[in-house]
């Protein structure tokens, strides 16, 4: 195959970048991380007019300064000549402000074209944009598109093809004229003298401009070439360089916008009634929680049919396998297939139901612009643990299901913060905990069982704070935490077709990956739990469990509770069934874990006579704060696409659950 044409998408947050990326590439996407960085890398392919294109969605940032990994990655990618053409996006409804990215790009020699988005929103606001005039003013190719309307892509492709033939760098004459004639023109000239020449895709003027802004990466670059003292002396000067360059850039933008935007009507009121409520000091938070709870309920409604379908699958597939067994296949193989492959399909489809529901519902809230309001309302509370306000949503969703919580983090734009949110969501007790713990707590402590539930929530809150510190160091480093500076985008009309298409595009990819992981772990667990005699005693798990019991006792668990603890990593709902299998011999561990064996009716009585209260309490805490379930691990891997971080978080939870268990057991032994 011929080498594809390489495009890069550059734009500020909310500029419609991901919508364009998704529309162009459809399902031909690859998501990973930039090497060695906690920043997501998205690339995709598409064809047009028999030509193949490779397009990289550069991380969203407001400028090309070296303030964050996102910005450094973005500008190095462009300057290293990786792209044939850079598509710079600007939001047509706030053209002046969002042209800042283009103004910051001017001086970089990689050819570029401007794409004006949100033209429909601009029209709603009573603004008309003269794209031809803008193109003439800027002396560069300009296309306008409504990101979700494929019809508008026609002229876009024409302009794109022409831009690729011409390959003009952005015209920088006017901007540098302004630099040279403004109040800090001397500083600019001084910087020009020091820079002396361009570097890779950066022109000499661009580097000089960044030197005035005291851009750290550019300082390092110049330091290598020029006498250190000269640079140091220059940097002693006023640090208001960024104010000067921004003044120049906005002057340039203002000149380029001359005659481009016509206002046909005044904007309607800045705040709608709903928005007043959404940002209100008293009602903002309750409203956000209310909407998120409704969102969770809606996700369940959407997930319902898919989960029902998942429930039907084993009923169809298992009899099929039984037929094979009847016609000669060995019983063991039949059970193995039913327990692993059929069960993995069931779990994966059920999980997809959740992921689908949550992605659609909260994707919708993000799309219409509401999540930015949630971010505003919860900024204060979430910033304390290094997160943005939006993170409250996945944490609340996790009260229902950790898988949903992980999927919900998709609305968070920073990869590091997304992963940190998932890591914290694991500590939130999920619905399965509410199904399991009250039964056990009541059996052991009667009415005081309610205290156990309260204790779990207290521990969860402390856990979240500590875990935020542990993982926050790397995922949301202190030096990168700043006060909030965020745009609250205008409300958009929902784009259902787009949203559903995007979600469906992801589902097949998720299915393959999740199915594989769940299958592999199921097979491993099958063999660990397999017992030739059918009872618990014949299994490897039993042998290991009893052999290491002296060690597990330190953590407060005997071999029985420890094996249940281990199987709770696969499925938390199954804990009662597994305990039942072990203590009353009502089935084997594997069947109980995959949910095909029910718990014994008198489980409570058996347990109370078999294990101490201290051990029971330690066990309940260990299970609650253990790895939530196999599907939560899989969906964490799916969202983070980092096996390393998924394993790190899983090991951390496994270890901390044991520590919590040990603490509880030994403290409880003093009192009860």
């Amino acid at each position, binding site marked *: 195959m011929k080498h594809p044409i390489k495009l890069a998408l550059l734009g500020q947050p909310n500029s419609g970048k991901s919508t364009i990326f998704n529309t162009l590439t459809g399902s031909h996407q690859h998501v990973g991380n930039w090497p060695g960085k906690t920043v997501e890398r998205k690339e995709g392919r598409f064809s047009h007019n028999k030509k193949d294109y490779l397009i990289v969605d550069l991380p969203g940032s*407001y*400028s090309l300064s070296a303030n964050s990994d996102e910005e450094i990655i973005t500008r190095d990618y462009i300057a290293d000549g990786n792209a044939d053409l850079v598509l710079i996006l600007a939001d047509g409804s706030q053209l002046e402000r969002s042209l800042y990215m283009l103004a910051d790009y001017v001086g970089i020699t990689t050819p570029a074209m401007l794409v004006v988005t949100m033209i429909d929103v601009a029209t709603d606001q009573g603004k008309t944009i003269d794209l031809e005039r803008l193109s003439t003013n800027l002396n560069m190719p300009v296309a306008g598109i409504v990101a979700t309307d494929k019809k508008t892509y026609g002229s876009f492709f024409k302009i794109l093809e022409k831009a690729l033939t011409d390959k003009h760098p952005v015209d920088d004459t006017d901007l540098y004229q302004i630099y040279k004639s403004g109040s800090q023109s001397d500083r600019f000239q001084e910087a020009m003298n020091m820079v002396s020449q361009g570097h890779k895709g950066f022109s000499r003027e661009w580097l000089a401009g960044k030197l005035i802004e005291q851009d750290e990466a550019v300082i390092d670059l110049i330091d290598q070439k020029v006498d250190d003292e000269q640079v140091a002396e220059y940097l002693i000067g006023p640090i208001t360089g960024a104010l000067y360059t921004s003044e120049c850039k906005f002057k340039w933008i203002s000149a380029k916008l001359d005659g481009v935007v016509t206002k046909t009507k005044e904007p309607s009121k800045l705040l709608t009634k709903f928005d007043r409520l959404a940002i209100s000091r008293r009602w903002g938070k309750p409203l956000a929680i209310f909407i998120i709870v409704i969102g969770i309920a809606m996700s369940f409604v959407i997930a319902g049919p898919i989960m029902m379908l998942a429930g039907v699958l084993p009923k169809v597939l298992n009899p099929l396998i039984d037929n094979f067994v009847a016609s000669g296949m060995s019983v063991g193989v039949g059970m193995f297939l039913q327990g692993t492959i059929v069960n993995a399909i069931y779990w994966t489809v059920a999980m997809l139901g959740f992921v689908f529901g949550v992605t659609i519902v909260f994707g919708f809230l993000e799309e219409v612009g509401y999540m930015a309001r949630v971010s*505003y309302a919860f900024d204060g509370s979430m910033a304390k643990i290094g997160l943005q306000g939006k993170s409250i949503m996945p944490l609340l969703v996790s009260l229902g299901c950790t898988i949903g919580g992980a999927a919900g983090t998709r609305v968070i734009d920073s990869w590091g913060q997304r992963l940190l949110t998932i890591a914290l969501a694991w500590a939130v007790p999920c619905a399965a905990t509410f199904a399991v713990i009250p039964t056990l707590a009541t059996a052991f402590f009667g009415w005081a069982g309610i205290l156990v539930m309260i204790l779990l929530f207290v521990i969860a809150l402390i856990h979240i704070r500590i875990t935020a510190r542990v993982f926050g160091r790397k995922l949301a480093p202190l030096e990168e935490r*700043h006060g909030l500076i965020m745009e609250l985008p205008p409300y958009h009309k929902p784009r259902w077709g787009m949203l559903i298409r995007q979600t469906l595009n992801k589902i097949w990819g998720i299915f393959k990956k999740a199915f594989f992981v769940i299958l592999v772990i199921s097979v491993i667990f099958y063999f660990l739990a397999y017992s030739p005699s059918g009872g618990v005693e014949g299994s490897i798990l039993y042998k290991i469990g009893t052999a290491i019991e002296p060690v597990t006792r330190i953590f407060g668990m005997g071999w029985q509770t420890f094996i249940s603890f281990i199987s709770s990593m696969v499925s938390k709902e199954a804990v009662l069934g597994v305990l039942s299998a072990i203590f009353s011999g009502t089935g084997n561990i594997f069947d109980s874990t995959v949910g095909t064996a029910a718990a014994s009716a008198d489980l409570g009585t058996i347990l109370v006579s078999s294990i101490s209260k201290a051990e029971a309490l330690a066990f309940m805490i260990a299970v609650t704060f253990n790895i939530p379930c196999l599907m939560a691990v899989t969906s964490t891997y799916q969202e983070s696409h980092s096996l390393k971080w998924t394993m790190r978080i899983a090991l951390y939870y496994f270890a901390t659950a044991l520590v919590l268990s040990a603490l509880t057991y030994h403290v409880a032994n003093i009192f009860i």
Partner: protein
Amino acid sequence: MTELTNLQAGQKAVIVAIEGDRRYLSRITSIGLNIDCKLEMIQNVKARPLLVYGRDTMIALDRSESANIMVEVCS
């Protein structure tokens, strides 16, 4: 001249000075708030970020950092 944080909701003003370190200056200007930029205070209540409207955009700003921004109130 007064700090942006003193502006009441509904008041309009022009930014006349921004202090702070290099990073802050770079971040605040790249979202569009620079010297001579006109803005309107949308909401200024305790324990919440400031909400201002400038350059056709509603922008939320950290309260303590915004003490760095000096404005001249428009009559």
